[in-house]
């Protein structure tokens, strides 16, 4: 790609062609995702600032240590969240496959991969719903923090406030991503894209879905690992 751009540098911006070589909607999706990245970035930086400004902080391994169908005193940190992470990665992979199938105009493959992606998104949302419910029953919510700091001192509500706000905002993104994918599936099944002659809409939905996966990489690291 770079060879063609360096070979004709003046011609690229001289009009008559698309200098970015992507269609309008895709470029706008990129710009939207950039603004969304700044929103999430602002949230996570606010979390980091508060954490740096506070004496003591809860140990994530003491907070996120349970999983469904386990007893009250189960101690399995990182296990459940790693499952959630892999679910999201795999659903991202099936989304790529759907996009590629769309480029090959292979309707059946698009449908199968979209369904798998939607299932992955729904599975992730279910995991998150379980985790929120579990934490709520432990007494955690906005403005309430039952967990002690790692050094045994009383902790502030900063931890739970940021956790529920940021994972909630991410979960809302996953939810809207699932809705978008369902719309894409309906449009594929009703042959909308076949009539248009291209599956470019799937690529835009794919960009959004990958972005959701990308944000989870950061949220997962910031809240569960570090």
């Amino acid at each position, binding site marked *: *790609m770079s060879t063609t*751009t360096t070979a004709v540098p003046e011609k*690229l911006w001289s009009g008559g062609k698309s*200098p*970015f*070589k*992507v*269609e309008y909607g*895709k*470029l706008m999706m*990129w710009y939207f995702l*950039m603004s969304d*990245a700044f929103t999430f*970035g602002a949230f996570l*930086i*606010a979390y*980091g*600032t*508060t954490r*740096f*400004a*506070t*004496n*003591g902080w809860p*140990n994530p*391994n003491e907070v996120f240590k349970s999983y469904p169908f386990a007893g009250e005193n189960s101690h399995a*940190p*990182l296990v459940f969240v*790693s499952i959630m*992470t*892999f679910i999201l*990665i795999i659903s991202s*992979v099936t*989304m*790529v*496959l759907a996009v*590629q199938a769309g*480029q090959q105009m292979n309707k059946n493959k698009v449908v199968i991969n979209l369904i798998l992606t939607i299932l992955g998104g729904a599975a992730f949302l279910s995991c998150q719903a379980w985790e929120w419910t579990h934490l709520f029953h432990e*007494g955690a919510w906005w403005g309430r923090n*039952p967990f*002690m700091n*790692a*050094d*045994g*001192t*009383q*902790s502030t509500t900063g931890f739970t406030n940021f956790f529920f706000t940021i994972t909630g905002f991410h979960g809302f993104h996953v939810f809207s991503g699932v809705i978008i994918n369902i719309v894409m599936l309906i449009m594929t099944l009703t042959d909308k894209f076949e009539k248009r*002659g*291209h599956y*470019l809409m799937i*690529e835009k939905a794919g*960009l959004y879905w*990958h972005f959701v*996966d*990308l944000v989870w*990489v*950061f949220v997962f*690291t910031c809240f569960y*690992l*570090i």
Partner: protein
Amino acid sequence: MEHTAVAEHHGGGTKEVIKVTIILSVLTVIELALGFAMMGMEQGSSLKLAIKGTIVILMLAKAFYIVGYFMHLKHEVKNLIMTIVVPLLLFVWFITAFLFEGNSFKHLKNTYDPYKKELSTKKAEKKEETKEIKTEEKKKAVE
């Protein structure tokens, strides 16, 4: 016309997807292994900080593979790559400035508000007491 040109410039294909999937999984497994290794360590020890730094680097590597290959940015025109990536460099300054600021605020508070510092070093009450309060609150909420 434009659409056919767009559809043509994709690299890699299924092989690339499989490769990137494996890389992402391996990076995640390494992250988790480091997370497990960190558990027994003392709070704030330098080894723990080093591991946390490593995890952040692995996180950035994962972000690179997702954006570059899954979101296809690596195969786009250089102009587009620059349009997306250069503004994001602002984050380098944001993170540095805000974390520095937060740390400074903590030190100022601890120096000039000793009462608050004393409060924050007090050990928390026993868990059972807080649990009782919680159940009382819950009962109230139910009523």
